[in-house]
């Protein structure tokens, strides 16, 4: 299995759209058999995505991703983990152990509670959530006025 992770300072790079480096890891028998650091194109997120697609990973793990790019990324035949955080070693350990990444690795504000769906539908879900649930407190008067 080939895993691609956009990286920065040995952690998942916080924003895919401006990521500069990729780590390609090959897994065999539950261990990392090979890893390769590869610079990403600087010309924009679509070019980065096309570049990664050409490497044919089975899994792509990255940080925050703009919705348009995520739409395209979701059409590729890989398992996409967007809006992820954490050190590469910890992420890989979790992936090898469980085959999936849990909420612990979601960027703050981007947990499964928010991520009932992705892309535009996700935005709608977040927008429809009660304010109390999102911010842990009721609306104040000025916010009520805004609404």
């Amino acid at each position, binding site marked *: 299995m080939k895993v691609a992770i956009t990286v920065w300072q040995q952690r998942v*790079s916080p*924003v895919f759209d401006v990521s500069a480096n990729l780590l390609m890891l090959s897994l065999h028998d539950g261990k990392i058999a090979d890893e390769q650091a590869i610079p990403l194109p600087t010309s924009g997120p679509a070019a980065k995505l096309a570049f990664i697609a050409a490497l044919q990973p089975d899994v792509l793990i990255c940080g925050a991703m703009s919705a348009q790019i995520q739409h395209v990324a979701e059409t590729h035949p890989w398992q996409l983990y967007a809006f992820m955080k954490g050190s590469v070693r910890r992420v890989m350990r979790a992936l090898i152990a469980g085959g999936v990444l849990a909420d612990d690795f979601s960027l*703050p504000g981007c947990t499964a509670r928010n991520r009932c769906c992705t892309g535009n539908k996700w935005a709608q879900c977040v927008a429809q959530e009660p304010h109390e649930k999102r911010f842990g407190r009721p609306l104040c008067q000025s916010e009520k006025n805004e609404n």
Partner: protein
Amino acid sequence: MTAHSSTLPAATMTEAILESISEGVFTVDNQWRITSFNRAAEQITGVTRAEALQQRCYEVFKSSMCEGNCPLRATLTNNQPIINRAGYFINAAGERVAVSVSTAVLKDAEGRVIGGAETFRDLSEVETLRSALNNPAQAGRMLSHSPAMQPVINLVPDVAASNSTVLIQGETGTGKELLAKTIHELSPRAGAPFVAVNCGALPDNLLESELFGYKKGAFTGATQDKPGRFALAGNGTLFLDEIGEVSPALQVRLLRVLQEQTFEPLGSTKSEQCHARIIAATHRDLTELVAAGSFRQDLFYRIHVVDLTMPPLRERSEDIDLLVNQFIHHFNQQQGRSITGIHSQALAVLRAYRWPGNIRELENVIERAFVLCREGDIELRHLPAGLNQPLSGSPAASSGSGTITDSRRSAERQRIVESLERHQYNRKATADELGIHKTTLYRKMKALAIDPQR
């Protein structure tokens, strides 16, 4: 207020102020972990304080600046504040939110650096307004300032991401093939071929062999196998232009390909798989052709999965400046020339013209101007005389053409007629849209011989 504030401790006071301002504020320690996060920061980022505290700032803020151009890092390195650095962050919905960021060093009572503070303003509303004013909407290579193009531009990313068959309709010369190419280039098939076939340009038999290919010996002269366009498109996109011109017999074969995803080259006994995505286009009204019985209804529904309509250039006149500049840039590069632009009078004539041939006609006009204009700006005299003719029925029509005054009158008349048509000849609404008084509109209509009863 004064009495209250005098009794509040300084820390509470500071907190109250931070909670009341509209700018997002957070502070970090020397390990880049967030130590405070105000209410505006919660609202702007969509991350709650509980989620943000003790997290690394770049994983909370998710900004375009974090990885390579962090203002807070620069401030802590150089001990210099940064004011209003522009960037964006990506919120949980995947939206890019424009922000302006300022930073400062945090020191304790002994003057030791204990971290940094970052304030940020949400610029998304300002950016939206600025963008609407200055930047055209864009999908791949397609740019537009025009509201008429917005539905198309907005749909392109989603259409590109899907595998559905697309039907593009629009008058000839409106850019249907460019739209098809843009969809292909933004799709996951971008690395595979884009193959275009003009179905109206070839006789039926030839079109059939072009599309499906043939085997050696299929007919006299077929001395070797020839792959068709379906095969050449592979996993890419096959663009069938002028699909309304296809004969009924060939429509049946196309329908079979779309239904079964297979085709048979001429003279072959085996079916081949079709993996290409089909984008069809026509300048004709297919529903009329279906009603008239000359286009199969079942094929129409097969290709009509996603429907995009390219508006004619006369309905997107806001784009004429943009297109003219694009063509000047294109021909300068293609011909190694250095035409600097277009004179405002020439541009006014282009804006006033009805463009029956749409963008293709505009491109030809600019190419012609490149032949006549050796250097500097394209001027009125470099444009075809036909463009510069005032509209028939206007007073200028009888007084000759070619002068600046005629051009201005022609443009003015055109603008008023278009506005009147948009408002069903309601003169109050027209005057409001044009930003002139109703009396001025009457006077201008009389002077320009515009029929008020139309």
